[in-house]
Every structure is written in structure tokens, then in C-alpha cells.
């Protein structure tokens, strides 16, 4: 998969006021800056720096991270839903890549 592909998983349906779990997996190498052990060349870092979680375009959480998070990072947060809406994640890396992913929740 290409770098930056994300999977966002939320329950399809929820009750009003329920706290649901929002899970995401993003394809990304998350490599720190380091020297190549064979050639001694400097390899620049390539990792995600920021991920915003939005619900109906309102900011819920921001995750700032470095290369300390594992490759292909998995993350889970909770979200309290009061109304139906769209969960959106917007994430960017230190090489200027920016992606987003959305999922819908139906609240009854």
C-alpha cells in the first residue's frame, strides 16, 4: 500500500450519548533519521507528525507524534456521539504529505 493510506474504523450505529471507539491504522514507515549501517549515508527521517480527529468538522483530539510510534501506526481514541455525523481524521508527515479519511456514524 502506498504511504499514507489510512483505515478508519468506527461503529456504524450508536446510541445517543454513547462513547464509541475510533480505531485507525495508517500505512507509513515512521522511520527516524539515521545512518545506513552499510554505506554510512544519512537517511532522513520520515514519520507522521500530527493527526487531528474531527467530528462534524469540530476538533476533538490532536495527536502529535515523532518517530517513536511503530511503523504503520495503529491508534485508538474514544468519541462521545450525540448526533449522527462524520468522523474525519486528517494527518500529515514531515515530508509535507497530507491525507484525510472519513467514516460515518448513525446515531439513533
Amino acid at each position, binding site marked *: 500500500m502506498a504511504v499514507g493510506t489510512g483505515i478508519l474504523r468506527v461503529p456504524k450505529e450508536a446510541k445517543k450519548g454513547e*462513547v464509541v*471507539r475510533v480505531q485507525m491504522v495508517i500505512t507509513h514507515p515512521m522511520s*527516524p533519521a*539515521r545512518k545506513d549501517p552499510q554505506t554510512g549515508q544519512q537517511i532522513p527521517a520520515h514519520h507522521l507528525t500530527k493527526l487531528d480527529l474531527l*467530528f462534524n468538522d*469540530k*476538533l*476533538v*483530539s*490532536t*495527536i*502529535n*507524534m*515523532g*518517530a*517513536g*510510534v*511503530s*511503523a504503520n*501506526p*495503529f*491508534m*485508538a*481514541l*474514544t*468519541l*462521545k456521539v450525540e448526533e449522527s455525523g462524520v468522523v474525519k481524521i486528517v494527518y500529515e508527515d514531515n515530508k509535507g504529505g497530507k491525507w484525510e479519511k472519513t467514516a460515518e456514524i448513525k446515531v439513533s
Partner: protein
Amino acid sequence: MDRRKFLALSAVAFAGLSIAPALRPAFGATKLEEEIQKRLGVQLLQIKESADIKLTAPTIAESGANVPITVESTIPVDKVEKLYIFVDKNPSPWIADVSLSPMNGQVYFSTRIKMGETSNVRAILKLKDGSYVMATKEVKVTAGGCG
């Protein structure tokens, strides 16, 4: 000052000088302390351990490249501003920080982190009143996962 006294004094002074550099690392701030000072603006020693935070991590990690951790807390989310994750002995101890809002419903964050060697994992919560609380857990790593 007679000769005997002078010799004794200089011996003490010399011993002091030669010991001082060896003691330095113990007095100087470690990487973790520096990082916490930089990002949180408080000293590590000022942060209290709290039983209200539950940090779930394996006691022995299969691989340092992939250590699953989960942070939960009984502290209501509207009293919490931010959540920090640190690993003591990593080349860069700061892993992530998460800003939380009442829309989260509860304090919960789960991810997978890299660990270079056996060390403590710390989850630090910044509360709205400006104080910090933390939970610590040691994770044994047999194969490091940095670099």
C-alpha cells in the same frame, strides 16, 4: 601552613577533582528529564504517581518495534487537557502527546510504540488546573526496535 597539612589538603582537592567528572551524569539531567522539562515545563520529580491512570503494556515485549500500550483513566475527560507518553531509555524519549476534549467522552488512548531496550514507559496527564499526574510501567524488551 606546614608541609604535611599542605599535602593532605592538595590530596583531598585532587581526589575531589578526579571524582567530580565521574559523578556528573548522576547530577546532570538525563535525556528523559530534559525532554520532560522542555515539553511540559516541569521537573520529572514534581510529577506525582497516581492510581487513577491505568497504563496497560506487556510485561515482556516480543519485539521492541511493536509494543502495544493503552492508557485509560478514571479522571473525567473535561478535567484533562493533554496526555503525554514517554519511554525512559529511548534515543528520543518523547513518543506522542494527545490533546483531549470533552467530546472524547473518556480518557482513552491506545497505540503501538517502539522501544530500544528494557525501560519504563510513562503516561503523564496534564490536568486543566495545571498539575501533572503520571503512571509508570516497566516493559522488558529482548529485541530492540529502534533504528
